[in-house]
């Protein structure tokens, strides 16, 4: 039914386009000097039918469920929900809905079946209403649009304004979604801080979120000091960057300036493939290859290390980030104008001097951008860390120890039996909020650095 409404709208849109175009054409054929070309008349008509009706349908679809439910509930026998808490009444509504959907469990009471039948009926009525409304409004809009085809009508400006509006809408969607996410995060975070004091979260040094979820369960009370978790993220990211930044930059410099054409042509695609490997594969690599290798090596020199180490996770994450940094740096270096390279060479600079003194400084903004993006990725990377780093939060900066990361904790906190009103679950939102703030600050920082260098070098 909804599909039919959309088809109807589509048909009306096409009709609007061709009708108005024809009308404009025939006016021109009749010798009138139109302000806008006929295709703009068509476009304007099509858009002025399409956009309002489309938005209307979307609103309808969003609201339909709630309104129909309301009608259905009003028809229930009086006193159905008396003495029930919100959970139990939701359960009843859910049962009625699943009966309406054809999934009947056991033998429900007669009033529930009756309510389900009414629900189905209301939905059918709503659907027909939708189609009828679409047909009527589309017809009205078609008629209005057709009347607009006159000599002086500025259809081009009109169409451009509508398109502009659409573009602004699309541009703001992302922003609004982000704002929505932040709101949700903030909301849950505040709830969390009502249970656990913010000072404990920010300055506590012990992270043990295991709390009893049933009264009869035996478990510790739970501790929510986030410092060890963040420390873990920092250690792993630091290891990753320690690997990725030098290797990535060297790769970029070599490929950009010193590599023969042949090497460049074969290495670049390989790097791009490396960038496309799913992180879960890197995780395998970390767990099955790198971690045992580190352990074995450490054992051979008489050091005992944990099976899960920050070094393994960070090192593999660093490998993952190499193509990221090298391709950013390579682009930045390639963007430096050839005239600068020639200028340095003509002064008798070697290629190394030219790279170090001229190309590299000129490419700094792009390189910094790439590195900071890599930092963001390292902080947000989950899979490798889940697989290779460990789950227990330790207050350590030793990369040979097993640590955990913010993202890992969020995953483990939200997996399995969860209720959204205990501190264990809510703490995931607090961690998420902190992660969000951290990447936000890094990105602001990145933008400022980039802008500062732009000012100097432009």
């Amino acid at each position: 039914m909804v599909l039919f409404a959309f088809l109807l709208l589509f048909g009306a849109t096409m009709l609007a386009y061709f009708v108005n175009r024809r009308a404009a054409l025939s006016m021109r054929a009749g010798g009138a000097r139109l302000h806008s070309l006929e295709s703009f008349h068509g476009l304007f008509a099509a858009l002025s039918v399409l956009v309002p009706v489309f938005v209307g349908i979307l609103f309808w679809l969003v609201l339909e469920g709630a309104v129909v439910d309301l009608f259905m509930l009003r028809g229930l026998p009086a006193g159905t929900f008396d003495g029930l808490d919100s959970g139990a009444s939701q359960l009843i509504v859910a049962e009625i809905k699943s009966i309406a959907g054809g999934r009947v469990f056991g033998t429900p009471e007669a009033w529930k079946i009756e309510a389900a039948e009414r629900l189905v009926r209301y939905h059918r009525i709503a659907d027909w209403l939708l189609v009828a409304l679409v047909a009527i409004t589309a017809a009205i809009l078609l008629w209005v649009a057709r009347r607009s085809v006159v000599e002086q009508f500025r259809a081009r400006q009109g169409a451009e304004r509508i398109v502009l509006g659409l573009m602004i809408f699309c541009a703001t969607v992302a922003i609004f979604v982000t704002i929505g996410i932040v709101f949700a995060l903030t909301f849950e975070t505040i709830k969390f801080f009502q249970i656990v004091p913010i000072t404990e979260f920010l300055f506590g040094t012990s992270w043990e979120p295991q709390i009893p979820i049933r009264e009869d369960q035996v478990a510790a009370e739970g501790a929510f000091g986030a410092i060890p978790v963040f420390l873990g993220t920092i250690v792993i990211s630091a290891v990753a960057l320690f690997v990725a930044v030098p290797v990535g930059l060297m790769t970029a410099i070599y490929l950009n300036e010193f590599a023969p054409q042949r090497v460049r042509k074969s290495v670049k695609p390989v790097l791009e493939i490396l960038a496309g490997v799913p992180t879960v594969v890197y995780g395998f690599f970390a767990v099955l290859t790198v971690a045992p290798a580190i352990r074995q090596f450490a054992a051979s020199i008489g050091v005992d290390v944990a099976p899960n180490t920050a070094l393994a996770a960070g090192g593999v994450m660093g490998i993952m980030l190499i193509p990221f940094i090298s391709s950013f740096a390579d682009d930045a270096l390639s963007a430096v104008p050839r005239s600068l390279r020639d200028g340095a060479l003509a002064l008798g600079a070697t290629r190394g001097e030219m790279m170090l003194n001229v190309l590299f400084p000129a490419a700094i903004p792009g390189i910094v951008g790439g590195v900071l993006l890599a930092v963001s990725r390292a902080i947000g990377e989950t899979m490798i860390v889940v697989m290779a780093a460990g789950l227990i939060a330790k207050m350590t900066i030793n990369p040979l120890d097993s640590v955990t990361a913010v993202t890992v904790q969020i995953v483990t906190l939200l997996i399995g039996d969860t209720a959204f009103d205990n501190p264990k679950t809510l703490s995931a939102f607090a961690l998420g909020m902190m992660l969000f703030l951290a990447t936000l600050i890094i990105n602001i920082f990145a933008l400022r650095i980039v802008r500062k260098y732009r000012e100097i070098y432009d």
Partner: protein
Amino acid sequence: MYDVPHGRNEVAVTDVKITARNVQVYYGDTHAIKDVNVEIESNTVTAFIGPSGCGKSTFLRCINRMNDTIDICRVEGDIRIDGDDIYDKRVDPVQLRAKVGMVFQKPNPFPKSIYDNVAYGPKIHGMARNKAELDDIVERALRRGAIWDEVKDRLQSPGTGLSGGQQQRLCIARAVATEPEVLLMDEPCSALDPIATAQVEELIDELRQNYAVVIVTHSMQQAARVSQKTAFFHLGNLVEYDDTTKIFTNPEDSRTESYITGRIG
């Protein structure tokens, strides 16, 4: 045909600085320079003229081996500076370029301060033992580039912040700061106003005291004003090479005559 303002065109008795024999340059399959023979003298300004695309820049870039940086470019023949083959295997192009300076058609200051732009060459060649000496070199170079007065109060501001003409003079200062023996200039005045052009021409004439200067120019007047020798290129050939006065008053080849009188180009 062209007036000769300062009597700069008199040819002094000089030594040959650069000798080119049977030089061929190819860009892939394009034959850009065809069998060019020329002798460029020291203490002389030599002008390369000719229509666009005839190979002036290409030939100029052979003299400091800048063509090495172009992958598809191949140079054949024999070019000698002071009798030494510059394409010899043992010659280090980096050292050669320190000796043969170049100024490009488009100003290309480094994204560094004015001071660092000029100090870059002397620094990488270890020409100054201390800061004071470096300061000295920079000031002298900027004065010779006829830009000192304009920038002396803002040596630390970025070179890219100067106007196009100032940038070009900065690039000239940068090139002379390394004290080259030969200075190659590829249309150095194409971005300059008449006043700055006059200053640069003054500078070129002055540089002639110590160096061999080769200048590519599209301005006949400029060639006539500043050079003692002129080479006319056409379609990759060196058509005529002679004293500037001779080329501009009594050219031997009909193509030269047509070009300088504006009939081909």
